[in-house]
């Protein structure tokens, strides 16, 4: 446990005071190639996937509102395209969750953990 953990969430009136040493550590870690790599790995996945998932959902809502002839088209007996697309929203949500877990454990967690350890060591110094 670093000394920081015992610090109250906030002490005294603003601004948050912190030693210059700590500030330098945070800035140095932020500028390090390892952290830049972690951030870009995170953003390259999370941002586009969020946008894609939300767009896919909005498309579904738009089809529900404006493409009813298309949505009521029969796929199999009582199952229409609207129903199938609705269930597909579930499927893609599960799929994205699963892929993100894989992505995190493989490419994000190890880097994050090693950066956490080295940062905390530097902060304690």
């Amino acid at each position, binding site marked *: *446990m670093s000394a*920081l*953990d015992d610090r*109250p*969430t*906030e*002490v*005294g*009136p*603003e*601004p*948050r005071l912190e030693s210059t040493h700590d*500030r330098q550590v*945070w*800035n140095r*870690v*932020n*500028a390090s190639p390892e*952290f830049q790599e*972690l*951030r870009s790995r995170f953003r390259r996945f*999370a941002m586009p*996937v*969020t946008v894609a*998932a*939300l767009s896919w*959902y*909005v498309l*579904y*809502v*738009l089809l*529900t*509102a*404006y493409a*009813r002839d298309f*949505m*009521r088209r029969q796929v*199999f*007996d*009582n*199952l*229409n395209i*609207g*129903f199938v697309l*609705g*269930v597909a*929203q*579930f499927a893609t*949500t*599960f799929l*994205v*969750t699963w892929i*993100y*877990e894989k992505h995190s454990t493989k490419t994000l967690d190890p880097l*994050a*953990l090693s*950066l*956490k350890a080295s*940062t905390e060591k530097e*902060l304690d110094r």
Partner: protein
Amino acid sequence: MSILAAGAEVSTSGTNWLAVTLFVGFIAVTMGITLWAGRSNRSAADHYTGGASFSGFQNGLAVAGDYMSAASFLGIAGTIALFGYDGFLYSIGFLVAWLVALLLVAQPLRNSGRFTMGDVLAFRLHRRPVRTAASVSTVVVSTFYLIAQMVGAGALVTLLLGVTGTTAKNLVILLVGALMIFYVVIGGMKGTTWVQIVKAVLLMAGTTLIVLMVLWKFGFSVNHLLGQAAETSGKGAAFLEPGQRFGKVVPGDGTQTMWNKIDLISLGLALVLGTAGLPHILIRFYTVPTAKEARKSVNWAITNIGVFYLMTIGLGFGAAALVSRTTLLRGFKTDAAGCFVDAKGAPLGGSCLTDLGAIPADLKTALVPVDPSGNVAAPLLAKVLGQEFAGETGGTILLAVIAAVAFATILAVVAGLTLAASSSFAHDFYANVLRHGRTTEKQEIRVAKTAAVAIGAVSIVLAIYAQSFNVAFLVALAFAVAASANLPAVLLSLFWRRFTTRGAVWAIYGGLGMALFLLVFSKNVSGATTALFPEQDFAWFPLNNPGLISIPFGFLMGVLGSLLGRDKQSEELYPELEVRSLTGAAAHGATAH
């Protein structure tokens, strides 16, 4: 309660003593758990986060238990049962919303905050204004949600227990309120979490049982189930297509049709963007020791919630297939003499009609359903299935079980809401704004508990007062406010270096204010027979859900407010926030006991 006479015959007959017994059993067990949990609560971290010592799996269940409200269990099942396909929209929006929480919010939030949503904002912004704003929006969102749940609880529990009368409803609201205060004050986050875990297990088990029975009845063919639902509903194939409930096409009124469709999109946006801004959901991410566990919580929550919402297909279409429409609506309103009335309370057609079958078709549309949203579809389905499998006794037993599940569902959610609101008041407003951060943990916890009692008491009074009003819109509104005020503030704070205190304050008050302003002038409040004040008409905003306008407005205010000036502290602290939020360095871990 003569106005409910027509409904009484199709609901439960007499008091269901088994249901009462199960309710009492659930109350006894959860009170026991709460007392046990409360014994080990010492520090502020214990009260606010259960010492951050839950596992991802446990918290995943608790998140599901906190999230799946009576609006989900009973509301969605009812909407599908009455309107078919359109009820599905809620299920999908409520689930897809979790991707925003998973990909952008859960882990960074866990790493950079400690107790409340306000923690994340206060990290690099000026704490007094942003914590005040966070506290205001947390209390507003949670209270809206709370009142909707409690009014629902009063109506529902009295119905399921087979008792009627305003006094009984008031007593149920009082009981629910007293219990949620007990869970929060005595058990803190630990007690509340366990109540939510128990509820999630009960809800999943109960729903799985009913859905398996429905599927068995239809030879495990969803196709047959849908076919029978379309037939029993009397609407045919249209029941399985969009347009029965949302985005309705009004023949001959192109303008209204256009607004209805835009309203559908507005609702869809509020549902999908609201979840990641709901304070009672956000604080659940602090109950685990690390960001990795927070991510696992969301994985488990998505699994549970997704499976549950998939099962709402079975619940809703099952009820539509096996329970008659009149029964689902619980009959139609009558006057003291037993004559059917119209929306204004006048006898239908000017004479006294008492036989539903004898009413001419053109008058039938003027009938007023006792329960226009079909809130008891799931319990009614349970009763029918029970009867089918084991006669009258089977019906009573299964109804009692599902009624108890609904009761547990409501209690777990209202406890979570009370905890979120009281924590934010105590930690954000009292400790950091009023006392400038100079307070002891003991004092802060005392304020948190007092706030829980106060918020609970106010909600009880408001819910009792609001009973006679139509407050069903409050849940969708809570999502709209969360998406318009909280989400912009949280996302911009985590991911935009240039974000400033002014931006955060503008985003929260702007999004919150715009959502409320548009709501007041919508048909939820006046100008419709289903409105809060049906006699008045000052509505000019054409949409029922303000999300389409208020969500972009919240983000816009956040950006504009930030671009109007620089915030040196915010920009200086951003590198630290980035490192902390992505690596978890120096994050608050679990407290050891």
